[in-house]
C-alpha cells in the first residue's frame, strides 16, 4: 500500500514536470563533466550546505547516514520475513556493522542538533516554513535510527547477529539491556517491524512533503546552470516553428512555468537560507525568495492552471522588490534558481499586463527612444571623453584591439564618468590599442531585460550586435559589470560572440606587467565592495583586489566575494523607488564598520548607490572605483 501511495504521487509529480513548458536545451544539457562535479561536490560533498558549518554538519551527518544506512533497509526487509537471514556478504561484515553504528549515532546527533536549532535557537530563516512537517520528519528519522540500533542490540542478545558483535560497539553496549529470553525475542520482532513500518510510512509521506527533496534535489543539481550564472534565458518571439498559441511571454499562469522551474519548486526544503541571504528581506521588504518558491509550488501542486501566478502564488510587491543579486541562488543547497522565476513573473506582468511600477516607465521609454535609460541625447554620449584624445570608432575604421564599452552610466552620470575618464587615461598611458563607439553605443538593454521587458532588450541586443560585428570587434573591455554580463553571457544568443573582460582585469594585468606603475604609498585603508554582477554572476574576484592592494591596504568586509551584499541597484532598481530601509545604507554601514576610509568599487551603479548611501547614512567614507584609485596612484 505504501508502495502504491508512493508511486501514484511520484507519477503525478513527474507528470507535472513533464507537462511543463520547455526550457532552453543548451543550458540544461551538455557540460557533463561539470554537472558530474556538481553532483559530487554539492550533493555528496554537501558543499553549499557547509557554507554554514554548524547546520551544514548537522545535515551532512543525516544525509551521509542515509546513504550508509540504505542497505540496512534491505537487511531489515529480509529480517522481517526471515529472522535468520540477512544480506549475503554485507550483512556479515564487521566493518559495515561498525559504520552502521557510527552513523546511527551521527544521525541521532544530527537530529538532536536539528531539534536544538529549530526549538531553541529559532533562526529567522524558518519564518514562513512548515515547521510541523519538519518535526514529523525528524521524529521519523529518529525512530528509524533508534529502532535499528535496538533491533541490532536484541539480535546480539539473542546471538542472532550475523556480524561479529564486537565490531558494533553501540549495539553491543545496548545489548546488555536485554537477556536471552522470550521477552527479548518478542522485542526483536517488534523493533524490526517498527523499523520497517516507519520506513514504509515515510516512503508514502515523502513525496507529499518537502522531504521529497531527497530524490529531487540530486536531479535539480544536475540540471542547474554550469556556467554564465548571470545569463537569463531568452524568450522566442519570432521563431516560426513555435505555434502562436505556445508563445511564452514569461510566466503568467502555472502552465507557463518551465520544467526546470517546476522541478525547482519540488526541490525546496524550506530551509530559508535564501531568505537569510536576500538583501531585500534583510532591509524590511516583503520579498522572501523562499516564499516565492513555496508559493509557486503550492499552486503547481493544486493543479490550478487558471489562477494568475501574481498574486495567487506570489504577491506583486515581492516580484518588484528583487534586485536580481543572486544571493539566494548562491545560498541554495539544492540549486534552485529563484531569479529566473522572478524575472519570468516580471516578464508577464510587464509585457502582457503592463502592470509594473509607474516610476520605471520613463526609463523604459527612454531606453527605447533615446538608447539610454536617462533619456540623454546620444550625441552627448562621448562628452565625458572630450579632450582626452580617445579614438571614437567610425563606420569603416579598422577594428582596435580592444573596444572600450563605456555603458550608459559611465557615459552620462557625473559620478560614474570619473571612472571612465580614469580608465581611459590609464589605458592610454599604458599604450593599449582601444577605441570607443561613442554615439553608436546603445544601451545593452540590461535594465529593460531585468525589469521584464524582454522585447525591448532583444531589439537592442540585435542592434548592438550588428554594430559590433560590422566593426569587426573581437575583444571588449568594460567597466560596468551589468554591461559585462550582458555582452559576455547574453549577446551570444543573438549572434554576438566576443571576448569580454572587466576593466579591473585588464588594469591589474597591466600593473602586473609593469605597464602601469602605481606609486605605492600604501597607508590608506581601503575596503572593496564586490559587485553582485561581477563577483557572484561572473566570478571576477581577484583582479579588483589586486588593484586595491597595489594602491593601499586592503581590509575585507564580512560579506564579501560571493557572499557580497548588494548595493541595491540591480534588477532595474536604479529606476525604482525603495520601501523600508535602504539597501545601500545597510551596505555602507557594513563598510564603515571596517574602519576603512575608502570604499572601493568596480561598478558604476555601485559607485552611485554607495555614494548616495554614504550621504544617507552620514558615513565618513570616500567611494571610488578601482580605476580612479589607480589613476590617482600614478598621478601622485
Amino acid at each position, binding site marked *: 500500500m505504501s508502495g502504491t501511495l508512493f508511486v501514484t504521487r511520484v507519477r503525478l509529480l513527474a507528470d507535472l514536470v513533464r507537462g511543463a513548458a520547455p526550457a532552453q536545451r543548451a543550458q540544461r544539457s551538455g557540460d557533463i563533466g561539470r554537472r558530474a562535479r556538481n553532483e559530487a561536490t554539492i550533493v555528496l560533498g554537501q558543499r553549499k550546505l557547509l557554507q554554514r558549518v554548524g547546520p551544514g554538519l548537522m545535515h551532512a551527518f543525516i544525509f551521509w547516514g542515509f546513504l550508509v544506512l540504505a542497505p540496512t533497509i534491505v537487511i531489515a526487509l529480509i529480517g522481517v520475513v526471515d529472522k535468520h537471514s540477512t544480506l549475503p556478504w554485507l550483512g556479515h561484515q564487521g566493518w559495515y556493522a561498525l559504520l552502521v553504528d557510527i552513523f546511527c549515532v551521527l544521525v541521532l546527533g544530527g537530529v538532536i542538533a536539528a531539534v536544538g536549532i529549530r526549538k531553541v535557537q529559532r533562526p529567522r530563516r524558518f519564518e514562513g516554513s512548515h515547521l510541523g512537517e519538519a518535526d514529523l520528519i525528524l521524529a521519523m528519522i529518529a525512530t528509524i535510527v533508534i529502532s535499528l540500533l535496538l533491533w541490532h542490540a536484541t539480535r546480539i542478545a539473542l546471538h542472532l547477529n550475523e556480524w561479529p558483535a564486537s565490531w558494533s560497539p553501540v549495539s553491543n553496549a545496548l545489548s546488555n539491556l536485554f537477556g536471552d529470553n522470550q521477552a527479548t525475542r518478542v522485542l526483536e520482532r517488534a523493533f524490526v517491524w517498527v523499523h520497517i513500518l516507519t520506513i514504509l510510512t515515510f516512503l508514502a509521506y515523502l513525496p507529499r512533503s518537502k522531504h521529497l527533496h531527497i530524490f529531487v534535489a540530486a536531479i535539480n543539481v544536475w540540471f542547474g546552470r554550469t556556467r554564465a550564472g548571470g545569463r537569463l534565458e531568452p524568450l522566442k518571439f519570432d521563431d516560426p516553428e513555435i505555434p502562436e498559441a505556445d508563445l511564452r511571454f514569461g510566466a503568467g499562469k502555472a502552465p507557463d512555468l518551465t520544467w526546470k522551474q517546476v522541478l525547482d519548486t519540488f526541490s525546496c526544503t524550506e530551509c530559508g537560507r535564501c531568505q537569510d541571504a536576500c538583501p531585500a528581506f534583510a532591509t524590511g521588504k516583503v520579498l522572501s525568495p523562499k516564499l516565492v518558491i513555496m508559493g509557486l509550488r503550492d499552486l503547481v501542486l493544486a493543479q490550478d492552471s487558471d489562477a494568475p501566478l501574481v498574486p495567487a502564488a506570489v504577491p506583486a510587491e515581492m516580484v518588484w522588490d528583487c534586485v536580481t543579486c543572486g544571493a539566494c541562488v548562491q545560498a541554495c543547497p539544492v540549486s534552485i534558481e529563484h531569479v529566473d522565476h522572478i524575472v519570468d513573473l516580471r516578464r508577464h506582468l510587464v509585457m502582457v499586463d503592463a502592470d509594473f511600477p509607474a516610476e520605471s516607465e*520613463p526609463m523604459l521609454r527612454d531606453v527605447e*527612444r533615446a538608447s539610454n535609460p*536617462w*533619456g540623454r541625447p546620444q550625441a552627448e554620449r562621448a562628452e565625458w571623453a572630450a579632450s582626452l584624445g580617445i579614438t571614437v570608432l567610425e563606420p569603416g575604421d579598422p577594428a582596435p584591439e580592444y573596444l572600450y564599452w563605456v555603458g550608459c552610466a559611465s557615459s*552620462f552620470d*557625473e*559620478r560614474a564618468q570619473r571612472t571612465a575618464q580614469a580608465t581611459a587615461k590609464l589605458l592610454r598611458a599604458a599604450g593599449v590599442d582601444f577605441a570607443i563607439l561613442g554615439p553608436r553605443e546603445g544601451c545593452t538593454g540590461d535594465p529593460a531585460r531585468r525589469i521584464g521587458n524582454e522585447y525591448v532588450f532583444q531589439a537592442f541586443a540585435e542592434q548592438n550586435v550588428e554594430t559590433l560585428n560590422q566593426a569587426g570587434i573581437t575583444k571588449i573591455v568594460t567597466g560596468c559589470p551589468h554591461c559585462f554580463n550582458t555582452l559576455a553571457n547574453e549577446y551570444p544568443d543573438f549572434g554576438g560572440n566576443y571576448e569580454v573582460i572587466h576593466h579591473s582585469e585588464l588594469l591589474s594585468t597591466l600593473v602586473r606587467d609593469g605597464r602601469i606603475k602605481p606609486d605605492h604609498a600604501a597607508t590608506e585603508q581601503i575596503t572593496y565592495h564586490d559587485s553582485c554582477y561581477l563577483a557572484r554572476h561572473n566570478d571576477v574576484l581577484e583582479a579588483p583586489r589586486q588593484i586595491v592592494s597595489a594602491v593601499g591596504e586592503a581590509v575585507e568586509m564580512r560579506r564579501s566575494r560571493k557572499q557580497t551584499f548588494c548595493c541595491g541597484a540591480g534588477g532595474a532598481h536604479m529606476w525604482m523607488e525603495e520601501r523600508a530601509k535602504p539597501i545601500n545604507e545597510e551596505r555602507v554601514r557594513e563598510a564603515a564598520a571596517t574602519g576603512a576610509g575608502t570604499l572601493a568599487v568596480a561598478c558604476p551603479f555601485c559607485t*552611485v548607490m554607495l555614494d548616495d548611501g554614504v*550621504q*544617507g547614512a552620514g558615513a565618513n567614507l570616500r567611494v571610488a572605483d578601482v580605476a580612479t584609485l589607480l589613476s590617482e596612484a600614478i598621478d601622485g
Partner: protein
Amino acid sequence: MTWGWCSAMVVVFAERSDDELFRQALSFARRLEDDQLHAVGIDDAGAYSPDGWAGALAQHVRERPPSAVVAPGSERGNEVLAHAAAQLDLPFAANCVSAAHGDPLTLTRVRWGGSLLEEARVHGSPALLTVAPHAVAADTAGIEVEPIRPAAQAKVRVSERLEALSAGVSLTDADVVVSGGRGVGSAEGFAVIEELAELLGGAVGCSRAVTSAGWRPHTDQVGQTGTRISPSLYIACGISGATQHMAGCRGAKKLLAINPDREASILASADYAVIGDLHEVVPAISAEIRRTRSG
C-alpha cells in the same frame, strides 16, 4: 440638417480646459471633410464616466452614422473613444496627425512616445480617430456644439476628487519651481523654500534625498523616479545635481542653483548660480522681492 454618410463628426467634451485641443481637433476634422462637420459635446456637470460618455457617443454614431469620428487626443478623448470603439466594435486610432478619406481611410499617427510616425490604413467605417496634441494648428473659426447626454447606466462614475497634498500650484503646471535638496537640512527648513515659492506664484519641489528622509511627500519629488517638469525657472537650493535629479528638471528653461559647494555638479547645468548657504540666500531673495513690490 442632413447627415449623408460622408459627414465627419467631431466630438468635444464640455468642461475641458483644453479648448485649445478641441480647436486643433476641429482643424484636423476640417481637413478631412470640410463640408459636413458636426460637433457634439457632453455636459458632465462634474460627473465623468468613460463608458457612460462613450455610450452616448456610440448611440449618436449608430443613429446618425458619420464617415469618421474625431476627438482631441487628450486623456479623456482617448479614453472615451476607446470605450466607444469597443462598444461599436469599430477600429480606433489614437494620436493621429493627418488623415484622408479613401477606401480604406489612410492616416498618419505618432507611435513610440513620439519617435515614430506611422502610416496606417483603417478598415472599417466609421473610423474613430483622436488627434495628437499640438500636432495640428488650432482652428480659428468656431463651430456650434450640440449637447448630448451621457448614458444613464454607467458602470464607472467619478466618486471623489482628491486634491494633491501640496496646496497651491501643481508641480507639473507651475511656471516657477523652487526646489530643496539635502542642504535644506530638515522638514522645517523648507519654510524658506515655501515662502519664496509662494512669493513667485510657484510650486515647491524636492530631491529624492528629501523624500527618503521623510521631509516632503513623494508628490513633491523631482527626478528620475519622481516627476519630470519643464518650468520657465527652476531654483535648485542645496541640490547637488546628480543625474537622477537632473533627469527630472532638464526641461526647465532657466536654472538657478544655490549651493555652498563650488564643485557641485549642478553648476555645470545652471544658467545662474549663487555660491552660498540657502538659509541665508533664499530669505534674502524673498525679502528683496517684498521690498521691490511694496516700494
